[in-house]
């Protein structure tokens, strides 16, 4: 008996050792299919139907399959593909890590572009270089990948994935003003009540805003109407966006006066934002710091928040619910300044990208999948996935094809139902908002949709491109690996201390967090970023990248109807020039 048990255990240990055992440094094998000519769009050469599994490492992605909707069917007609999507329950990368270690990666994965994993997967041979695949089987895709995006995402000599939400210079003019990413919004009726008070303070100052919150709560809080003076976003392992947005209102720079890189978290302006929030917390004016996104959404839906300092696009359904509810609660943007009275310098919507889609070594037909990438990345694919089928749901509004409008059929279905069968704006893993957003038709917009679109647009006067603050890092070096590991460790410390900086003694908690981060290699991280930042500026030929430090910077003034700038400074609620409709 003992001998048998010992033998069994020995066998199990041996099996465990052999399970999943693959030699290190697996090499990619390219299938032996003929190259595709470059004379036509690559997807037109697909002559078979196939299915691919696509994992999106983000829990908010809920689209499941292209098989069930009209756009999915159209994609299938054009490319032969049916795509089945999966996504995790939580955004903690556990699923992805298990798939990698168990060698069960599906055909395609979309992972967060700013994390270390994409580079690691690329360098260790888990994903195909998309440029190499495109060179063989989708040459037209090579023309579609803009050089600035290819340059930013290339690792060594190759590009291993295609990003969504990357704003290429091809589509974004430097003079264009995009709305900010985060925004402070204020409940309109309560705001108007406060500003109509004879002794109301200037609400764009810290003291004025605090006074407004205190008095609005005293005025409107009843047993049946709760008032949350200021609503913050969720505290997560990646920090808190509300504090980031407030620090941008307080003009926390990412560059010092000498043009060197600084992490905005370690600036006086950021600390000022923290101390202000701590002061509000002490006065009982902040929402609960342990609220999750569901609770935050509920507060917005009920119109209980006076000031919201969240990322509005993450809560559009809640803002809509509040607006369409019985109280018709409307929010408008608000400006607040730091003690020095600086103009807010808000990060606009344009960014380097979010999810990076990669074709894994487990994909049996990378020659076909790269053609699907080509289609989804093309302007034709973007129009199909976002607007639907040409002349069915949309049509060109001019002969130059610079604007589009919804068709009567679309408008009818939108009002009477049926539009949900299309699956519009679902297939967004290769979404290019820089192309789509300016084209988005505004005919047939309902009142509440226009309201949502305009929520933060007046703040565009204060929003700017932050892309220089995210320099390209050389991901092929050993130093990169140690730096990103240290960065992840530092972020864990920072995100743990962040709530304590607000609820406890700000200075003590702030200094303790920095000391702990320094023990985890913060200085190396900052030095690495500083070098990359300097290299980025040199490559771009820029001397000062911090917006107010640029020679052409002027304090925002209201714009006239013709787009010219007046002499009137932008007021507390932004510039109405940027409103749609």
């Amino acid at each position: 008996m003992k001998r048998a048990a010992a033998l069994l255990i020995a066998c199990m240990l041996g099996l465990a050792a052999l399970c999943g055992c693959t030699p290190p440094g697996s090499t990619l094998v390219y299938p032996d299919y003929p190259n595709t000519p470059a004379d036509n769009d690559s997807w037109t050469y697909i002559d078979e139907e196939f299915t691919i599994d696509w994992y999106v490492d983000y829990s908010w992605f809920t689209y499941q399959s292209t098989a069930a909707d009209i756009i999915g069917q159209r994609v299938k007609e054009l490319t032969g593909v049916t795509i089945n999507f999966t996504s995790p329950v939580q955004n903690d990368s556990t699923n992805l890590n298990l798939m990698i270690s168990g060698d069960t990666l599906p055909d395609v994965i979309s992972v967060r572009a700013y994390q270390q994993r994409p580079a690691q997967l690329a360098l260790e041979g888990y994903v195909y270089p998309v440029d190499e695949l495109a060179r063989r089987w989708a040459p037209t895709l090579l023309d579609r990948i803009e050089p600035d995006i290819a340059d930013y995402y290339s690792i060594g000599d190759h590009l291993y994935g295609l990003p969504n939400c990357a704003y290429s210079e091809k589509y974004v003019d430097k003079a264009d003003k995009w709305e900010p990413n985060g925004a402070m919004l204020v409940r309109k009726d309560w705001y108007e009540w406060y500003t109509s008070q004879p002794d109301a303070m200037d609400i764009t100052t810290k003291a004025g805003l605090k006074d407004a919150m205190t008095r609005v709560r005293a005025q409107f809080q009843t047993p049946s109407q709760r008032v949350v003076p200021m609503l913050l976003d969720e505290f997560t392992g990646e920090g808190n966006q509300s504090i980031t947005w407030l620090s941008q209102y307080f003009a926390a720079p990412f560059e010092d006066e000498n043009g060197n890189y600084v992490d905005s978290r370690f600036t006086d302006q950021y600390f000022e934002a923290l101390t202000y929030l701590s002061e509000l917390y002490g006065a009982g004016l902040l929402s609960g710091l342990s609220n999750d996104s569901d609770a935050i959404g509920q507060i917005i839906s009920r119109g209980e928040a006076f000031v919201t300092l969240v990322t509005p696009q993450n809560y559009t359904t809640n803002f809509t619910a509040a607006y369409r509810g019985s109280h018709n609660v409307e929010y408008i943007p608000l400006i607040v300044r730091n003690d020095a009275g600086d103009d807010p310098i808000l990060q606009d919507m344009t960014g380097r990208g979010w999810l990076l889609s990669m074709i894994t070594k487990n994909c049996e037909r990378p020659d076909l999948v790269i053609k699907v990438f080509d289609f989804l990345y093309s302007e034709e694919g973007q129009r199909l996935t976002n607007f639907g089928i040409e002349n069915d749901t949309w049509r060109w509004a001019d002969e130059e094809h610079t604007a589009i409008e919804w068709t009567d059929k679309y408008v009818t279905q939108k009002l009477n139902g049926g539009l949900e069968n299309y699956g519009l704006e679902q297939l967004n893993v290769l979404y290019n908002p820089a192309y789509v957003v300016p084209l988005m038709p505004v005919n047939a917009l309902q009142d509440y949709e226009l309201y949502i679109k305009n929520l933060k647009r007046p703040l565009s006067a204060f929003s700017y491109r932050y892309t220089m603050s995210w320099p390209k890092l050389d991901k092929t070096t050993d130093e990169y690996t140690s730096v990103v590991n240290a960065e992840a460790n530092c972020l864990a410390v920072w995100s743990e201390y962040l709530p304590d900086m607000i609820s406890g003694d700000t200075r003590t908690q702030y200094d303790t967090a920095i000391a702990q981060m320094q023990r985890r290699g913060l200085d190396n991280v900052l030095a690495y970023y500083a070098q990359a930042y300097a290299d980025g500026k040199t490559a771009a030929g820029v001397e000062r990248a911090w917006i107010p430090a640029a020679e052409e910077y002027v304090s925002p003034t209201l714009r006239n109807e013709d787009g010219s700038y007046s002499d009137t400074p932008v007021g507390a609620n932004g510039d109405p020039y940027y409103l749609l409709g």
Partner: protein
Amino acid sequence: MTEHIEIREQEEGVQARENLSQKRRRRKMRKNDWELQTMVWLGVLFVAVFCYAPLFGIILAFKDGNNVLNIMNAILYGDWVGWENFRSFLADGEFIDVMLNTLGLNGLMMLINFPAPVLFALLLNELKPVRFKRTAQTISYLPHFLSWVVFGGIISALVNTDTGVLNALLVQSGLVSAPVDIIGDLKYFWGLIIVTSLIKGIGWGSIIYLAAISGVSKDLYEAAEIDGANRLQRVLHVTLPGIAPSVVTFFLLSVSGILNSTVEHILVFQTQTNLSRSQVIDTMVLQYGLNHGMYSYATAIGLFKSVIACGLLVMSNLLCKKLTGKGVY
């Protein structure tokens, strides 16, 4: 002399025959009891696969397997780093907090949550109205059948500062002037875990003790009653000694598991705001291992915990043997 030899030969013959018949009986039993054999071997297989085979992974604690993509590659081909991962853990700024949370939280759980089901079982046993007793039992069992995710979700919704009913009631009744952040405030977190654990587990945990109480001879109660013992005395001098072996066994298991936390229980209430009071060894292993991909570091933490738990088990067993004369081995 010859007589002695004959007797000895006879005895040896008897012994040999007995051995032979024993072997035959065993063989026969194996053939006849294949159902039992199957059950036993399935259990052995389960333990071998899920308890012994993973032991192979302990190697990872001594290798450089942090932030690797393929764990097996790290186990087989990773560089040996000796005690480096353990040193990192001990030098980590989180170490003291994590150990304090683990020992403090589990220590309190043992002090409060271990005797609570015993007490509850004793109280239930003393109840005379059968219908009330059964109702109380059923109600107390119910939360056990909810998963921690569901149960935790309900509690979180109830105690939320901005949207929860509990805070609204507390404020409106004037008991508190402002909503209390029961989940986010550090000083309430351990209490939250202990109370929710009690609500969810007290009824179910008392079943084993109720079963033990039912095994105590009725004669003893009658004898005690004749001797003039009141109800409390009967509980103290009859019931408690009667269930002492069960209590000791579960106490020893609890001591060995003092570093084990119910991960899903803590995770469901863990937020960034309470991390410095909610991070325990098990959640740290999960966070570093599966979330951050620091496999070696997480393995080292897990091994550190297992070694201490093993030591605690041996010590508590010795102590129990000395104090009560009873132990698990």
